[in-house]
């Protein structure tokens, strides 16, 4: 008896596999898709080659004045010359090491927090939250330990952006959590105070808050008692962002099933313990995307301080482009600022995704 030998399988049609198959199923699967693909390619063809040509091929990179920019492309010389200012603002050059030291110290302190087996994370985090700001402030402002005092009007550039957003992030999260808890509290005074606070600050635009802080507030203070503009802006940003943070956290609290609250009570835990050990860890984990979203928004919102004359990264760029020796290079400056902001925001977003994966315990809905 002849054993039946099945025909070997034919290879899949060439149009279904490999590059062609991928193109067919993803880009040319229907008339509409084909049309869109062609249109998109045309747009890319129109925009990308000139962009690369401008930004890289015909760009000028090195030099020290606008005379070095004569090839018609981007003039990165401008960014090059002003790089220190974009990073440190008008801070005296002799003091750059202080800023570097302060940020280096922060990175160094923060590294152990990411090491799984490090056991004293709580202690270290407390040191970063309470001790580090004091050290950093001493380094930035000077005036003690033989450091040259540097007034806050000279702080600027990326340094100021990081200071403002760092303080905003670190301060707004705990205040936001307290407000969220307050808003869900059953105590009438606590509850109404929280509600009024949150609704007031969410009801006004940040630009108004900054204007009030810089223009109106000094008028209401006693003659001669003006306090630092940077501090005023910082307080405004923190209050504003903590109201948003409160609502994000409240969303997390509301998503926790009632059974969890009841279980916590059944265990005999008091309010703070049940919140700290059972409810908040779950609630905060749920709203990581929302929290990071608020952080990213805050980071970008700090650029608004340029309307009250503080030179954050963007403000510094805008000042630099009014130097009569460098007039007309605004595009290069703005592109550079955009790139820096993108790097920071993208890293925050990636970090939050990593955090979500790490804290994922199978309960995610």
């Amino acid at each position, binding site marked *: 008896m002849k054993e039946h030998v099945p025909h070997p399988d034919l290879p899949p049609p060439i149009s279904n596999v490999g590059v062609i198959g991928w193109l067919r199923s993803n880009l040319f699967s229907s008339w509409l898709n084909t049309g869109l693909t062609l249109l998109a390619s045309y747009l890319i063809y129109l925009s990308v080659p000139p962009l690369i040509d401008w930004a890289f091929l015909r760009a000028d990179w090195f030099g020290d004045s606008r005379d070095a920019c004569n090839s018609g492309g981007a003039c990165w010389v401008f960014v090059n010359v002003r790089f220190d200012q974009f990073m440190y603002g008008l801070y005296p050059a002799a003091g750059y090491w202080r800023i570097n030291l302060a940020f280096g110290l922060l990175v160094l302190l923060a590294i152990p927090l990411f090491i799984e087996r490090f056991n004293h994370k709580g202690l270290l985090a407390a040191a970063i939250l309470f001790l580090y700001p004091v050290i950093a402030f001493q380094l930035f402002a000077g005036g003690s330990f033989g450091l040259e005092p540097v007034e806050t009007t000279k702080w600027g550039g990326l340094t100021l952006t990081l200071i403002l957003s760092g303080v905003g992030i670190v301060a707004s999260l705990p205040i936001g959590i307290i407000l969220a808890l307050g808003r869900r509290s059953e105590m009438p005074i606590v509850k109404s105070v929280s509600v009024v606070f949150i609704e007031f600050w969410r009801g006004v635009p940040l630009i108004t808050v900054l204007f009030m802080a810089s223009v109106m507030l000094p008028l209401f203070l006693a003659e001669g008692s003006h306090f630092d503009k940077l501090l005023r802006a910082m307080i405004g940003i923190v209050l504003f962002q903590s109201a948003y943070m409160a609502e994000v956290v409240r969303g997390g609290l509301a998503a926790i099933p009632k059974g969890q609250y009841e279980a916590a009570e059944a265990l005999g835990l008091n309010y703070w313990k049940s919140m700290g050990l059972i409810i908040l860890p779950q609630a905060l984990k749920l709203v990581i995307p929302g929290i990071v979203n608020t952080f990213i928004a805050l980071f970008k919102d700090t650029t608004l301080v340029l309307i009250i004359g503080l030179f954050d990264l963007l403000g510094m760029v805008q000042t630099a482009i009014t130097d*009569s020796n460098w007039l007309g290079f605004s595009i290069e400056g703005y592109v550079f600022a955009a790139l820096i902001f993108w790097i920071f925001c993208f890293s925050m977003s990636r970090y939050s995704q990593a955090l979500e994966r790490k804290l994922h315990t199978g309960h995610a809905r």
Partner: protein
Amino acid sequence: MMKRIHAVATAAVLFTAATTTAQAGATFDAVKSKGFVQCGVSTGLAGFSSADDKGNWTGLDVDICRAVAAAVFGDAEKVKYTPLTAKERFTALQSGEIDMLSRNTTWTLTRDTSLGLNFAGVNYYDGQGFLVAKNLGVKSAMELDGASFCIQAGTTTELNLADYFRANKLSYTPITFDKSDETVKAFEAGRCDALTSDQSQLYALRIQLKNPESAMVLPEVISKEPLGPVVAQGDDEWFNVVRWSLFAMLNAEELGINSGNVDAMMESKDPNVRRVLGLEGIKGSGLGLDDAWAANIIRGVGNYAEAFERNVGMGSPLKIARGQNALWNKGGLQYAPPIR
């Protein structure tokens, strides 16, 4: 709502003004005791105040701050700068955050009377002008009948232009833009025949053209924008110091004293020169300053011509002609009372 905020602000300003009036000489004393002048400047305006590559503030407005510091302390570097936006500038002055404001501020009746401020003089006579392409072959704004104009939206520029053309019975087409960058691009692309803005701005915009030599600023000036340093009311001595610091620079130019020859001029026999340099006459006693106050200004900052040419004139990329800012005896408006 806006109106009410305005009313509150005005009331607050007036209130503050009223309280400051009580203590004459307070600002001057405070400046002397703290050892520097806190000066409000623009956050960035080409030629008037901007931070250079090293982070030092430079510009024509900045030089007024430096002149005051030189007059009071004999050292033009004893200034601390507070960069201010247009909205903040008067509050900063009123609240005492700054001692003087030198921030391309137009002197108007409203500002001089309702904000509790005093304008100490005019360090730059600005006004609206026109920028046209050279190949248009136009030599005067009167030849611009029927032309199209690139304008920045929402500025008084628009209104001035309308007034001027109506008064001269000419027709025109306005094309408005939001940002000055866009305005320049449109002008460069030939979307309009002329670009109109304040003259000091026109020169800054002109540099941003691919070929600045292809465009020229017409001689007509159709509005008055006298820019000058401002101090808070209530300290007349301080007001005098700021005002005469500016006058000293103008007098020095008129008498031919500059930072290069000031030491040689000490030997001069001309009584006018000797009075400016504090060798005879009232010297510094009227202002409560050192006798060499004016000499210190000239040494540290230079005379008005030097400051002008260095920051906005032929020695700068802006290349603004003296025009209305020439001295009175050279066809301009800059006129300082004599030092005697």
